[in-house]
């Protein structure tokens, strides 16, 4: 006589896992200094990075995050990586950032830049940036293309990014190699 059928075992396993999956808080990494961010941005040589600086207290930032994330989903196979650099205070992450991430389930990479010496690192991000949020830039082959304003439409965002994505034929050629 069999006590447990395979499906019962599966069900039990699922029950055991489910609460663990639900309790898992959304992942983000806290970077202490701008140098940590710089290292992260320089690591992806063949990828097109779309780097967005934002905070939960910035209303236009919060509005454009879903657009940026849709772009990540649409162009993941074109070697696009969206990096959302959050500037909330470290001691407010639990109360501000985490509920936001739980709500949106983002595909994009989220990092928190906790470096408070903004006057020193803003010019290093881009000489075109005055520190206003949101700020977005493309990082590709060591070059940066800044965008000072928020994106109001997916089309506008796509037009900004598309010219900087790796061409499809090049991707196919690489994959065949």
């Amino acid at each position: 006589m069999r006590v447990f059928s395979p499906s019962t075992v599966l069900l039990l396993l699922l029950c055991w896992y489910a609460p663990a999956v639900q309790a898992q808080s959304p992942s983000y990494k806290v970077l202490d200094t701008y140098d940590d961010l710089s290292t992260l941005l320089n690591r992806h040589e063949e990828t097109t990075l779309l780097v967005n600086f934002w905070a939960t207290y910035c209303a236009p930032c919060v509005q454009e995050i879903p657009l940026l994330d849709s772009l990540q989903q649409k162009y993941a196979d074109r070697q696009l990586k969206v990096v959302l650099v959050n500037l909330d205070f470290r001691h407010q992450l639990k109360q501000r950032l985490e509920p936001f991430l739980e709500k949106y389930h983002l595909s994009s990479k989220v990092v928190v830049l906790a470096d408070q010496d903004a006057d020193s690192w803003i010019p290093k991000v881009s000489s075109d940036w005055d520190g206003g949020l949101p700020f977005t830039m493309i990082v590709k082959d060591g070059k940066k293309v800044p965008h000072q304003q928020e994106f109001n439409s997916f089309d506008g965002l796509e037009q900004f990014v598309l010219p900087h994505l790796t061409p499809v034929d090049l991707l196919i050629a690489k994959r065949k190699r």
Partner: protein
Amino acid sequence: MKVTLPSVTLLAFSAIVLSNFNSRPANPTTDFNYPDGYAIGDVAQSFRLKNYDGRTVGLEDYPSAKGFIIVFTSNHCPYAEAYEDRLIALHRKFADRGFPLIAINPNAPEINPLDNMEAIKKRARLKKFPFPYLSDSLQQVFPMYGADRTPHVFVLDSLRHVRYMGTIDDNAEASHKVTKRYVEEAIHALLEGDEPTPSTTKTVGCKIRMMERRSSAPKSIEKTEG
């Protein structure tokens, strides 16, 4: 009648000046002389704005001031909140030495009710601000200064020349980790008769959002001033 070129030019010029004059509202949204906001050395205009205690306050109310610490701040921005105690400390330290602090809330209550006069009163009383906390709810002062986020500081000297603009110090989140006190150092420099260095710093904070205006008068000024 022969019309000479100089007379045409003069006519055109006076037409521009007159149209400018006519279309200029009683309270311009930008300083007539500095349409893009102030740079270091520019002469800042005074203002009269309503304080949380019902009085109206302007720079003329401080005849013996050697300068001012003008801070555009707000009620709900985490950065503004993080600096409230430091604003109080700055005022306590420098008001007696001739540099009083004046806080101005530049946000339109129509955009966020947390910036209305009631909320300003509540915040000022809760924190026991020893300085005026004024409402620029019609958004006529912050564009003159060129403030674009909260908090944003402008240090003026006795002649109201802008001598420092930017952030308060180099650690918004943790005051005990501050290593560079930009505003304090700027005032010390002015008290010594020196140039503040740096005179401008970049700042992260909450963007001041401008209400869209129905009137086209300020726009026509911008066009003619080009």
